[in-house]
């Protein structure tokens, strides 16, 4: 069986769903970052696959942008995470409610 566009897209959708569930369910900030990475990378797979399917490089370029931005986001996020951990000694999402109105 040849692997076609639809396989990639199904993979992308499955990964996106996993990421989404992770975003909703995980209470650990670090795992939340993992889930966001999965979300972003599922989109990257879709971009790359569709770009290849149409023979247009724009989608792959876009995927690179996403990777770059994801890397910087994680860099900032992890920085904040370490600071938070130093102060509160945990990274549980439920304790982070100082923004409650």
């Amino acid at each position, binding site marked *: 069986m040849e692997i076609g566009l639809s396989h990639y897209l199904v993979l992308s959708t499955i990964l996106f769903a996993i990421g989404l569930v992770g975003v909703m369910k995980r209470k650990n900030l670090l795992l939340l970052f993992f889930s966001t990475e999965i979300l972003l990378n599922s989109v990257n797979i879709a971009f790359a696959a569709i770009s290849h399917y149409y023979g247009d490089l724009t989608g792959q370029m876009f995927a690179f942008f996403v990777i770059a931005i994801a890397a910087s986001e994680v860099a900032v996020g992890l920085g904040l995470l370490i600071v938070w951990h130093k102060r509160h000694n945990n990274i549980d*999402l439920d304790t982070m409610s100082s923004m*409650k*109105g």
Partner: protein
Amino acid sequence: MELFLYTALFAPFVGSLFAAIFGASPKTIIAGIIPSILLGVSLLSSTVLLVHVLSTGEAVHVEMMTWMHTGNLYIPFGFLVDQVSVTMMMVVTVVSTVVHVYAIGYMSHDKAFNRFFAWLSAFVFSMMILVMSDNFAGLFIGWEGVGVCSWALIGFWYHKESATWAANEAFIMNRIADLGMLIGIFLVYWNTGTLQYHEAFEAMKHLDTGILTTIGIFLFIGAMGKSAQFPLHTWLADAMEGPTPVSALIHAATMVTAGVYLVVRSNELYSLIPNVGLFIASLGAFVAVFAATMALVNRDIKRVIAYSTLSQLGYMFAAAGLGAYWVALFHLMAHAFFKALLFLGGGNVMHAMSDELDPFKMGGLGKTMKATMILMTLASVALAGLFPLAGFFSKDMILEAAFSEHHFIIYTVLLFTAGLTAFYSFRIIALIFHGEDRHTALGFHPHEAYPFMIKAMIPLAILAAIAGFARPYYFDMVIAVLPETEYHIHSAMTYWTMTIGTQLFVIAAIYFAYKKYMSSDIKVPDGTSEMENSFKYKLLINQYYIPYFYEEFLVKPYRALSRVFWKDIDMKIVDGTVDGIANIIYNTGENTRGMQSGNLSTMLKWMVAGLVILLSLAVIFGLTVKYSGV
């Protein structure tokens, strides 16, 4: 001359502002003296202007500044002192100066002495704008200014329910009429393209009679309100709630004469529409007799004098309506002097009697208040129109005008009214000053007013006595701007019969009044006598039931209607809508605030939910577009 013009106009304003500085502080005598002096200055400036107009025969016309200038509309703050306005300025300043000086004494025990002078001077200032303006817009400013000041002064003792009621009544009645006035002014502008008197009247000569009639009627409605003509007359008698100097000012110089002034000023318009003129004259004659009958029985000296004003205004309108504008203006002037005198005398009596106004409770005051008695009797003689006082010359001229214009019904009505006038004037004189002493038994200890108050009244007395002789000179002066209508009864025989007949009729009425009300068996009426229970008396004392009619058929339905609008339409529909919208938003917030738990995880769930909803919508929308065949 410009300097004198501005001085005459703005001196009362400065006086008003000066008194207003002390407005909230307790009585400061200087707040009364400075406005009075400034009004004296205004009087002197007006006199200079009068001499100038008399000697050169030229009007002084200045444009202080542009008020409105957009497109074709050009309204300046322009002032015109011609033969007509200089007469009004003299009347206004003479009477106002006297009233100001008098009020220093009259109001000396009042807590709000300073406030009184601030409003009184503002009142005069508004009237000066009204008479001096050279266009309808300026006239209207003064017109409204007079309305506001009269409201504040009639309701001066605002802690009295009746005073605030009377003030509001006067104000509202005037607003009704002002709507007519405003429509009239709009029509003038619409049809002539200008509001300057001179140009507007010039342009009116080429207008259609129908339009002119409409303009004339609407302007006259304005005049009817200010001059308290039927059916807008009820406020005038109720306005007696104000302090007496205010009544003197309203009735003699400012306010009520404004309507007559407007008709005289618009003489070029009314000359073109004699039918409206005839209507004005008929209404005037009707009001003259109508008010005089009400004055016959009233038991309040100020109200009697108020009805007499109403009656005399009727005379003025009768003259103006018949085209005898200069006669109307002359009667206005003569009337201002003796009516102000009568009111100020009435004020003395009121003070002496601790604000008691029922003449039946007085009697024999002549012994203690000789000067007031002489002044009031003089004023009443002038009002009754006996030779040689001012009233004779002016009123006789109106009768002659009606006679020689062949309006015999108007003539008869006015002649009859002259008799009534004499009767009611001397009825109160006899009741107040002569006859048995009835006040001591009721516990009153009358005293004469301050000497300076009496002295302040003397100039008015002199003018009331001699102003009539100025008639020929006056005629020569005003014909420069007013139609030269002289009335000559063809046969000398008829003329003398009429004049002497009128005089005898008036004397008979006076004699009858004295005879009836000086007798020793006059008692304070207690509602039991036969006369008091007669239909005629009831009709007259209740002012022909017109206030009652207004109350029942206008005020009450209006109140009911307002209540419906308030309770049902405003509170239920309008407020309901606004409150409903607010409630929806409030409840939405209340119910959804649970979302903002501050928990990142919950928020992310909501974000996902939002994403799912938006995606679904996008898909549904996309499918719809795809299959709808667009």
